[in-house]
């Protein structure tokens, strides 16, 4: 037995050697990847933390609790609180329409959803200035009616919505396409209304993909700089979001404060990363088509045994219910 075992082990080792690269090559590749990640990702993160805490916890706390900083945090949260739900509704509706129906303008809609990815965020901000600014098309009319959009909170929210609206739809379209429409059709034939089908079938099937999309969307909504910068006006305590506030502090050589506030965004980034990893794993599970899991030997008893078993079960069930018909066929 021992001899057999040993020879099998060495055989599998030989096999592995034959199908992989030499150890030196593998180590080199891993080292290159790690060094790259270290220099470009980990080092900056450490630097942010180090800079933020350089002047001690007291200075860090003071920078965070500064009224302007708190206002920036509030505005960022408010912006995300408006932009995220709106984009979720839009994204789910768009993904559903695109994945489930054929209609004229469908490919145009797909293209338009990608527009914010294609356009520089600065341009996205400028679009709103051109529309709603004092020199813009609607600016004078809005000014006459005392509605402030540019250099005010509504402009920031609009710019954020524009920049972030592809995330959910982009995430859901391939997922819904892969899952196919059959479960929804089954639901409808079984007597469910459109809303019931959406709530009991569509939504649970895409929930992890949706969550993944929401996490990315939220991270981008809170971190957006370019588009928001154009429409904000940088009014301290009023129209500054966290990223804008960091820039102002930095430009004023308040390095410690800048890094302290930046650490809030960094922390948000790390939380996003963890949440994303979890959602991504769950999402990958929901993507596997049922057919691919079909004949998992761990779960399927040999078919003939299985059928014999169910005939037995059915007979006892029939006996329990006292229905002769059920006994008859078994």
């Amino acid at each position, binding site marked *: 037995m021992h001899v057999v075992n040993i020879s099998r082990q060495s055989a599998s080792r030989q096999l592995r050697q034959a199908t992989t690269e030499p150890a030196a090559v593998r180590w080199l590749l891993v080292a290159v990847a790690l060094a790259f990640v270290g220099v470009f990702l980990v080092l900056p993160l450490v630097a942010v933390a180090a800079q933020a805490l350089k002047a001690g916890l007291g200075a860090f706390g003071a920078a965070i609790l500064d009224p302007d900083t708190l206002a920036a945090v509030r505005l960022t949260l408010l912006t995300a609180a408006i932009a995220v739900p709106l984009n979720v509704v839009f994204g789910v509706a768009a993904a559903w329409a695109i994945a489930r129906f054929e209609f004229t303008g469908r490919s145009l809609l797909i293209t338009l959803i990608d527009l914010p990815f294609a356009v520089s965020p600065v341009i996205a901000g400028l679009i709103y200035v051109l529309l709603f600014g004092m020199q813009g098309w609607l600016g004078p009319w809005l000014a006459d009616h005392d509605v402030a959009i540019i250099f005010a909170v509504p402009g920031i929210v609009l710019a954020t919505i524009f920049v972030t609206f592809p995330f959910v739809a982009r995430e859901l379209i391939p997922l819904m396409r892969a899952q196919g429409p059959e*479960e929804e059709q089954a639901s409808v*034939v*079984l007597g469910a209304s459109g809303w019931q089908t959406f709530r*009991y079938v569509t939504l649970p099937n895409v929930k992890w993909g949706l969550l993944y999309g929401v996490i990315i969307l939220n991270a981008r909504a809170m971190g957006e700089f370019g588009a928001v910068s154009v429409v904000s006006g940088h009014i301290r305590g009023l129209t500054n979001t966290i990223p804008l506030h960091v820039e102002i502090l930095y430009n004023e050589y308040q390095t410690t404060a800048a890094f302290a506030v930046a650490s809030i965004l960094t922390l948000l980034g790390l939380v996003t990363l963890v949440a994303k990893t979890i959602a991504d794993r769950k999402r990958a599970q*929901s993507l596997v088509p*049922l*057919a691919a899991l*079909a*004949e998992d030997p761990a779960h399927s008893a040999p078919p003939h045994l299985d059928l014999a078993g169910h005939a037995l*079960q059915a007979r006892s069930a029939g006996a329990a219910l006292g229905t002769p018909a059920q006994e008859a066929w078994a």
Partner: protein
Amino acid sequence: MGIRVDGLSKRFGSFVAVDDVTFDVRAGELVALLGPSGGGKSTILRIIAGLETADAGSVSLEGEVVDEMPPRDRRVGFVFQHYALFRHMTVEQNIGYGLKVRGVAKAERQRRVGELTGIMGLRGLEARYPAQLSGGQRQRVALARSLAPSPRLLLLDEPFAAVDARVREELRAWLRRMHDQVGVTSIFVTHDQEEAFGLADRVMVINRGRLEQDGSPREIQDEPATEFVARFIGESNVLEARVQGEDAWVGALRVGLDQGERGTRGGAAARLIIRSYDLKFWHAENGDSVAVVRRVVPLGDRVRVEAAVDGAGPIFAHFPRRSSLLHGIEPGARIAVEVTRARAYPVEAP
């Protein structure tokens, strides 16, 4: 009452999927739609369920025209080819879904689900998810789910295509028993002749969206109404022949034709279709011999004998494996040929 499909037509762009199809299904009947893939069978089923809308024609269930009725109100059960079980619901939730969305109280729902898991042999699997079931078990969950709301019609789209061959055989027999017990009017789609003939009371052969023939399994096999049906069903010889009087000639082989043969006239060219089991070969060295054996191929329980007819092309027949008819049949042997049954069809003008 049953169901009636009247003049149904459906196009997808320029592709004609269903072309003026009319048929009736009596209450309690089990009917097969049989035909090659892409022939429009599934589309007919989907139109009846309301998942597609017809361009023309009408569907009535129990005398009620349902063309304008949304699928959820039709009270039709539909078993999808890949079952389309709700992946995030347990077996119990899957089966109870149709009752839940119709607002059936929980106690009644549980009673019905319990009853169906009993009939379907799913006891003990109630808490499992579809991914934890074998193919055959999923099939039965799909069936139980569609039966739970007591549909007036059950539609099955290639119900056994996704399970492996061994399970398929048993599931067929089981579906037949289930149908006889529950008694729900059922239509199933299949491209498998054995499945259609072995399971259905009546078979409708569909090709290129047209209903080619509607009849009992015996009628479809013995009295094919069209050349398509004759060629599609079973394994057949398709031979070019010349008709003279009561006979057709394929090279040196004379084939007697029945009175009722359609559309064939003396002297005309015709296409003969002869099933592999409607031929007999025997060893003959004298003037009776009209062909020479080319190959003898054992195929499990039967033997395929291929021969060449003098003055014409190849011909083949199937024999039981140890048949005494095979005596002296070996490559190179001269044989006589007897045709028990042949159908002649006029050759369409080119």
